[in-house]
């Protein structure tokens, strides 16, 4: 116990220094975890059942909520576009605006945020519970590599399935935008899709899928990282779950900007 308090500037420097050290250690552990998982990829591909199981759990089971969220996102973007443009621009441009916004931004970002809420939390809670109840130690004692058995299938399933989810999300969101444009704003089918086609370039799909791939890694890596190193019983698992979803959400938004800067 310290009885004499250090002067405020020293305490601030100590506090910042401690946080920098903790962050540096965390980043180092994260890099090591990724390298460990990559080194298990060949064995994972030779015995793909674990990967397929996670692809179903992370990808297929996220599809309903992704479709639901995308439909309404597309719908609201068309409604907003219609409202904003009604006095200033031809409404025939709604399709162009919705298409561009959905392919470049809303499709990948919204899908990633929805999947982060579902998958990062679920992975962190599952692995965290396994950690604090010694199930991961039990795997180790049985000579079953937990990185190969638990971490790597989830990480690579995220990388593989997020691009597919984003394709589904993008298509459904544009369809949602079309429904609102057609029914509420009375724009014909041909006008809407001509608008979508007007500003469409193939490079947008490259951006869309690059974002999806990176976000897929962020979502599952956050869950695996915080779940795998959870400690301290139920409270520790709760904290790991919060850290996983908050980190995934922040990183998705940060990387969304960085990718836009680099690729646009």
């Amino acid at each position, binding site marked *: 116990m310290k009885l004499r308090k250090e002067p405020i500037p020293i305490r601030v420097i100590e506090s910042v220094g401690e946080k920098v050290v903790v962050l540096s250690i965390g980043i180092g552990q994260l890099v090591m975890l990724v390298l460990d998982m990559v080194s298990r990829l060949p064995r994972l591909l030779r015995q793909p059942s674990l990967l397929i199981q996670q692809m179903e759990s992370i990808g297929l089971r996220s599809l309903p909520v992704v479709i639901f969220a995308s439909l309404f996102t597309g719908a609201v973007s068309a409604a907003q576009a219609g409202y904003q443009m009604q006095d200033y621009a031809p409404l025939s441009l709604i399709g162009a605006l919705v298409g561009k916004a959905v392919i470049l931004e809303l499709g990948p970002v919204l899908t990633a945020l929805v999947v982060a809420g579902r998958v990062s939390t679920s992975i962190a809670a599952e692995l965290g519970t*396994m950690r604090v*109840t*010694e199930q991961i130690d*039990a795997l180790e004692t*049985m000579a079953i590599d937990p990185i190969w058995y638990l971490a790597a299938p989830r990480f690579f399933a995220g990388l593989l399935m997020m691009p597919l989810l984003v394709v589904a999300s993008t298509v459904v969101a544009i369809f949602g935008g079309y429904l609102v444009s057609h029914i509420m704003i009375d724009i014909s089918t041909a006008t809407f899709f001509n608008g979508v086609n007007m500003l469409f370039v193939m490079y947008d799909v490259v951006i869309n899928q690059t974002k999806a791939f990176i976000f897929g890694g962020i979502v599952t890596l956050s869950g695996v990282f915080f779940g795998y190193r959870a400690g301290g019983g139920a409270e520790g698992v709760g904290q790991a779950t919060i850290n996983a979803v908050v980190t995934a959400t922040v990183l998705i938004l940060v990387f969304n900007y960085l990718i836009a800067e680099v690729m646009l």
Partner: protein
Amino acid sequence: MGAAAEQGCSICIRNLRKYLSGRPVLRDVTFDVPKGETLGIVGRSGCGKSVLLKHVIGLMLPDSGRVLIDGKEIGLMNQEELYATRHRFGMLFQSAALFDSMSVGENVALGLFHNTDMSEPEIIEKVDSCLGMVGLHGLENRMPSELSGGMKKRVGLARAISMDPEVLLFDEPTTGLDPIMAAVIDEVIADLVERLKTTAVVVTHDMRTVNTICHQVAFLHRGVIFAEGTPEEITRSDDEVVAQFIAGRADGPIRPRM
């Protein structure tokens, strides 16, 4: 102790030191477990018994000192060597640590499925045999959440012996069980160790477990092996610290932390 003597024992711990959160948990621990012997490690709650057991199987690495398995230092093994060594071990955790998303049968079969070339019918037969040995024949399809504490420990035991281990490690096998179930678990462990001719290390603070299944006892106190001997020798010890622990008295040289 020379290298020749170290080669002759199954598990050799030499001058083990471990700090956790800046606090010395193990200061200088040295002991041997000869092949075919059962060593009981006793001591107060929180004295580092489970930490010591985790060092034996390489789940934790020492800050200094050595853990030797048949003369090979566990801290110097690569992952392949470590896993090859662990194939020879079975461990029962204090909480049983059953995989709660798997059935009883899948829990017992997991190691066999991933670490052996056994066919599915052979694995099913082996799982049946292991569950039979712990008196849980026919419970393959139950989930861990449907089992009592004693049954979970027995499933943990069945899982620990599924790979025909040469060394069995038990972490508090009877903690949290009623006296009758604790006696049942003690008998099952004694019977398994005898039948499988394994080397075993039992971490416990239950002296009845020690008297039932251990050949030798090591009393861990303040980070060192404070006393060693047969269960009878430890029970009859006139050292005040050992005597207080054996008798379970509140007053004596050991001051309980409140």
